[in-house]
């Protein structure tokens, strides 16, 4: 597919304006891009979350393709049923099998990492043909910013408060992308909204597979991350440059790194611009920042090894730590 911005901007949007997603939310931006690739012959399943409730206020809908929201935990199972129905209806001649239909699922980190993990795993294991896009904003945002297993340790959320006894989220972040890859899923990837060509190319690759595929997409949430709404796309860039959110793909089992930052930035550049990490900027929390840095570095080195990328130079090319900047809240 020709990823020409001028051509794409001339195509009709499959997600209509008028939905109530927050200013600065990148989800609608990315969903429109994804639907440009998938096209009108697409059935969409949404797990309960910001996207589903903001795009379907009865009696209105923003979806110009067939869409279903069932429940919170069962997007994987719901798409499995739709795909199975499609197979049966094509086989029995009640539907024209020549017209390929894409099956797309959108779930947040809540509906994917946590409550929806079982049904996703089952659908992956059974090999149904669908693309699952996890819109990962690193917490249960729709219900008011509660921690998920995708939340970075040290983060403030409303169920990992920073108080006099507890320091924010304690547990490490779950690597769902690796969990999905362990299912032998034909195409698995991480993506960021600021790399729109990469997102769309990955969707194209995914939809070509005759089986399941999964894209874990970082979805910056100005509301929940406590940043200015104008920083949505920029946050994606910083996440990649600090290696907080590496961009890679696993295509038929082969790991490939898509983006290697020219200059690996320290995690403090990720933390200092988001109010949800404001407490970590205090000098007494230095060790927690170091812990996050170590975690990110370790994961990055492991990823480089898996992707068969040359060892990083002995002297890591990391920009100097310029200390905390004033925080936008």
């Amino acid at each position, binding site marked *: 597919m020709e990823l020409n911005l001028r051509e794409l901007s001339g195509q009709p949007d499959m997600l209509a304006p008028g939905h109530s997603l927050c200013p600065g939310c990148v989800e609608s931006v990315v969903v429109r891009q994804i639907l440009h690739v998938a096209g*009108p*012959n697409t*059935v969409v*399943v949404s797990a309960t979350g910001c996207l*589903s*409730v903001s795009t*379907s*206020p*009865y*009696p209105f*809908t923003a*979806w*110009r*393709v*067939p*869409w*279903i*929201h*069932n*429940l919170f*935990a*069962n997007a*994987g*199972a*719901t*798409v*499995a*049923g*739709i*795909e*199975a*129905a*499609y*197979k*049966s*209806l094509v*086989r*029995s001649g*009640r*539907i024209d099998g020549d*017209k390929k*239909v894409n099956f797309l699922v959108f779930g947040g980190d809540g509906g994917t990492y946590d409550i929806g993990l*079982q*049904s996703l*795993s*089952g659908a992956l*294991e*059974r090999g149904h043909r669908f693309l699952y896009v996890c819109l990962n904003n690193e917490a249960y945002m729709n219900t008011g910013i509660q921690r998920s297993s995708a939340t970075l340790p040290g983060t403030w959320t409303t169920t990992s408060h920073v108080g006099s006894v507890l320091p924010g989220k304690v547990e490490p972040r779950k690597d769902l992308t690796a969990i999905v890859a362990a299912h032998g899923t034909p195409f698995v990837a991480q993506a960021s909204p600021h790399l729109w060509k990469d997102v769309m190319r990955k969707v194209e690759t995914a939809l070509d597979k005759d089986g399941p595929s999964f894209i874990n997409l970082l979805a910056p949430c100005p509301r929940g991350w406590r940043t200015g709404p104008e920083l949505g796309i920029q946050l994606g860039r910083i996440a990649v440059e600090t290696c907080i959110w590496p961009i890679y793909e696993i295509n038929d089992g082969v790991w490939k790194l898509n983006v290697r930052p020219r200059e690996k930035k320290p995690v403090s550049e990720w933390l200092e611009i988001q109010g949800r990490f404001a407490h970590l900027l205090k000098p007494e929390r230095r060790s927690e920042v170091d812990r996050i840095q170590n975690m990110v570095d370790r994961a990055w080195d492991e990823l480089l090894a898996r992707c068969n990328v040359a060892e990083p130079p002995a002297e890591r090319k990391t920009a100097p730590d310029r200390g905390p900047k004033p925080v936008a809240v």
Partner: protein
Amino acid sequence: MTVAGRAPIRESSEPKTSVGLSGGLAVAEAMRQTRPDVVACYPITPSTIIVEKFDEMVADGKVATEFVAVESEHSAMSACVGAAAAGARAQTVSSSQGLAYMWEVLYSAAGLRLPIVIHCANRTLSSPINIHCDHSDTMGARDSGCLQLFAENAQEAYDNALMAVRIAEHPDVLLPVMHTQDGYTVTHSVERVDLVPDAAVTEFLGAYEPKVSLLNLENPVSMGPVISPHYGPDVKLPAVEAMLHARDVIASVGREFGELSGRHRGLTEPYRLDDADVAMVLLGSTAGTARVVVDGLREEGIKAGLLKVRSFRPFPDEEIAGALEGKSAVAVMDRSLSAGAGANPLFEDVCVSMYSHAVNVPLVNYVYGLGGRDTFPGQLAGVFQELLKIGRTGRRIPMVRYL
């Protein structure tokens, strides 16, 4: 337990097949005949027998169904929602904890007006764990908006499995239909089952042709939107209306099935009730035992009668109130508890029926068979003796009793 009281078989031009089948295998056979597009289920005792048999049929090419071996019952019902929303005939099988695990999805399916058929085998709910029969599992779903049909024996389970599809898909209903049979007692006991020929079933059911479907790409729809309080009643009340229509649909489908098979099924099945003095109201297999007891008491000159309820949801309140009018005392038998309530599920519905139709008959509630404990003819005979006393004295306290 099904020796007496079988409905008379009318002559039909089509040859019938009589086979020995357990209730579970009879339902599997019915499923095959309904030709579902998608069957998504998870095994749980004692309905596993249905799941396994159906999978075997698929593997042998006896039915062309997409069998989705889901990883849980929650996903089973969820996959059925997806499939039905995509315009396919979808069914699942479950019991007990499995049914409980899909509880939220039953409500979702009913809210989305999807004609999914759920083949149930009644098994008690944990804890503690127990694989034997009582009605606590399906009772837990009685407010979900799903229809609920109870079978007494393998024949009825087979018949209900066929009719459930027709009832669910009827344009005036479009709700999930849960039909059930007693676990082990019926699922695993071999009885004579008269089968309807494949072609006749296909013609009787017709095709599932929904007005809206996710796979109708020319007319994209959004299903499962978010509703504000302003629309609250508007989206909930249609289910009530559909349930009212369902009574007529169950009756008319039952009549049509009667012409096809020779077995007419209604919403209730009275037995020697018309001139009865005392009566028992029941769901499920124990009706068979009760029928034998009624015959025995009649021989002793006691005018005992039986009212078996087939359709629990919708509850045929008018029919039941009319049938029980004039009796001197009635026992309503519950095989599940509603702990903390004044009485138990079936009694509550019968009571409401009587009250709303101004029928004043002494009613008592007997709880029996919890966790699969057997109920013997002598015990039921004892209940009728108690009813005679209540009829004479008018003293019906305590209202709730335990066999």
